[in-house]
């Protein structure tokens, strides 16, 4: 088994890049939507055969065992080449939790099925009425014989209509003194009469998000991961790496590239005012990348990231939005039109980028919540 971490960064980057460039199907590059599994199954098989499905997992569980530095490189190359992340909720969220908190039986049963995508996972965290106040969840799970019986509703469950399993936070002790207590982490199969999935139509007309309704849905008691009523702390513990990932410059960089080719094709750079605003956006991305590199270096040195890493997410998501707004301006009279706009031999879907940028300041902890956190945890402001 290759010890990737023993390679130099440059060697490793080269290796990853070569594989992606040689093997990743051209037509799947920079997919504008989240694919169903069938659409990317072929690629997943290749990745699985290569042993690269789970870059962050320890090698003993079938992962690549990458350290933080190598992991960042892996993701950077993935994003650079426009490689779709696939249906990676299992790898990113459930797997690490089972590895850290699961029983030996759970590890033996679930982990290989995640790698092979025999099970496809979706994440049941958000609930209607909870929003940024994630701990305010009301979906109940009660023990009934050998099962948990689940009642309630989840929302914003990405691709639930194409998942075989759901992992979720549920309330198992409604009388706990604080709302963060009394929450457990549960796995459940989707294919059962007690679970109903409805897609949500977004304002751009897409249907990647779902509502999931639980009406006496059942899951065996052995599908509880970790201790009963300790789910909140467990779920939080896993968000650390995600906090730098969600602040990565890649979304904004890709959008900037699109903006540039579109603006060039449309002659928008003839306008000095547009040039100035493009320069602002480009420098915002460039200087953000410098700050991102500072945090990434911290990770690479083996340090733990502080709460201040959230500033990356605030800056880059708002920057991403401004870039897509500039695309609309560059589109002139086409700025309200749906679908790809042709310029020369590039085609840019301006509105789709604009829509994609909208929720980035809302999900993953809205930017308002991030500012609350920074003001208290980093600046030490009172109240």
């Amino acid at each position: 088994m290759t010890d990737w971490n023993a390679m130099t960064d440059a060697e490793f980057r080269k290796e990853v890049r070569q594989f992606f460039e040689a093997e990743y199907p051209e037509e799947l590059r920079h997919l504008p939507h989240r694919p169903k599994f069938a659409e990317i199954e072929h690629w997943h098989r290749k990745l699985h055969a290569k042993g690269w499905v789970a870059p962050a997992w320890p090698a003993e569980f079938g992962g690549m065992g990458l350290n933080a530095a190598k992991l960042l490189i892996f993701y950077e190359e993935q994003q650079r080449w426009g490689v779709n992340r696939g249906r990676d909720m299992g790898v990113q969220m459930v797997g690490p939790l089972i590895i850290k908190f699961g029983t030996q039986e759970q590890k033996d049963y679930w982990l290989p099925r995640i790698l092979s995508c025999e099970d496809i996972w979706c994440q049941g965290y958000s609930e209607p009425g909870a929003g940024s106040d994630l701990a305010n969840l009301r979906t109940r799970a009660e023990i009934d014989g050998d099962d948990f019986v689940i009642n309630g509703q989840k929302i914003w469950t990405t691709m639930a209509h194409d998942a075989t399993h759901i992992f979720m936070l549920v309330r198992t002790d409604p009388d706990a003194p604080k709302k963060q207590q009394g929450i457990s982490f549960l796995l459940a199969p989707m294919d059962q009469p007690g679970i109903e999935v409805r897609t949500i139509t977004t304002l751009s007309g897409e249907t990647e998000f779902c509502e999931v309704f639980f009406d006496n849905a059942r899951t065996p008691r052995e599908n509880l991961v970790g201790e009963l009523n300790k789910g909140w702390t467990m779920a939080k513990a896993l968000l650390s790496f995600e906090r730098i990932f969600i602040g990565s410059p890649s979304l904004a960089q890709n959008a900037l590239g699109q903006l540039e080719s579109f603006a060039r094709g449309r002659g928008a750079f003839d306008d000095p005012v547009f040039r100035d605003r493009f320069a602002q956006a480009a420098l915002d991305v460039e200087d953000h990348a410098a700050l991102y590199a500072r945090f990434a270096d911290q990770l690479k040195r083996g340090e733990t990231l502080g709460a201040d890493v959230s500033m990356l997410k605030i800056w880059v998501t708002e920057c991403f939005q401004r870039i897509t707004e500039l695309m609309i301006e560059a589109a002139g009279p086409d700025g309200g039109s749906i679908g790809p706009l042709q310029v020369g031999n590039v085609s840019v879907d301006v509105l789709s980028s604009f829509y994609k940028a909208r929720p980035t300041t809302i999900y993953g902890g809205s930017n308002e919540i991030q500012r609350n956190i920074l003001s208290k945890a980093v600046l030490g402001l009172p109240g």
Partner: protein
Amino acid sequence: MTQTEFLSSEQEDLRLLRESVRTLFERAGGSDRARQLRDAGGGFDPEMVRELAEAGVFGVAVPEDQGGLGMGLAAGGVIAEEVGRVFAPEPVVSTIGLSLGLLRRLCPDHPKMAQLIGGEISLAVAWQERGPDGAPADATCRYADGKLTGGKAWVVGAIGSHGFLVVAEQDDGPVLVLAEADAQGLVIDKRTQADGSSLGELSFSGTPAAELASSGAVLTALAEAVADATALAAAELVGVSERAFEITLDYIKTREQFDKPIGSFQVIQHRAVDLNVMCEVAQAGVREALAQMDSETDPKVRARLASRAKARAVTAAKKITRDAIQLHGAVGYTDEFDIGLYLNRALVLSAWLGDDAYHRRIWFEAREAEGAAQ
């Protein structure tokens, strides 16, 4: 003493007009009606067009001796604001501003005038063309021997219209012609927009069309009609902004997070105040610009005023509808809440006839030209 006692009779007329149009739309189902029409494919309701016509909507800015109400653009703006509030899909602004704006200046006696005012037909105006890079370009569409050849782009209301008022070139200069919707050799490529409406890209291959007017007057009238439509689109955006703000204000008063309404958080409060102020400034600025256009005869000054209105309205509507989504949080991103419809309408109206950056440029250039002329 009541407030209205002190309103001028002109202001009182506008107030009554606003009330009647608002009632008409509300009776028809308000924004729900518009949503249903969008889901049904993006068309409009011919019955509604007739009702609007009965209320005098289309002829509002047409002089009385041409069969209109002669109330001017300020009254047109009142109507456009109400259209924006319920995002009605009927071709109100394009008819008042463009088709009637052209006909009343070039051929006020044409029988189509009365039909447009009466809501019996609608005509789309085709005047822009797309260059090879996809951006607007100079006109090349030709009219000769009673036939059109070439293409036109970004035609608002192309779907559902009874014909096209096409500005084309002939040997001795520009010409305005009328092509029927079912004319031979006319192909309409439909491009759907964010709000469910569509733009037509027309191509003519020997399409028969009837000449309505020619010579330099065509371009002068076109510029005037475009200025009118630009100002009215600004007013529609004011309506969009106002309603989007009201919906958002209601939402933040009721939606709870961390056990209290999100509207009790100071950051949300201040943002709401800023949107409110922006909305009020836009309303005041746009209304003033339209009123001044009514008392102004110099086409250059009128164009500058229209640019002032559109620049302000686009800036405000973009900011208000985008912040409204953020204030709604995740639900704002769903199609279930109305707020997304306002965002989409704002996108479409901002792109139509030039956005804020464009109009600031035009405004500045017009101002410089006026200064130099003095």
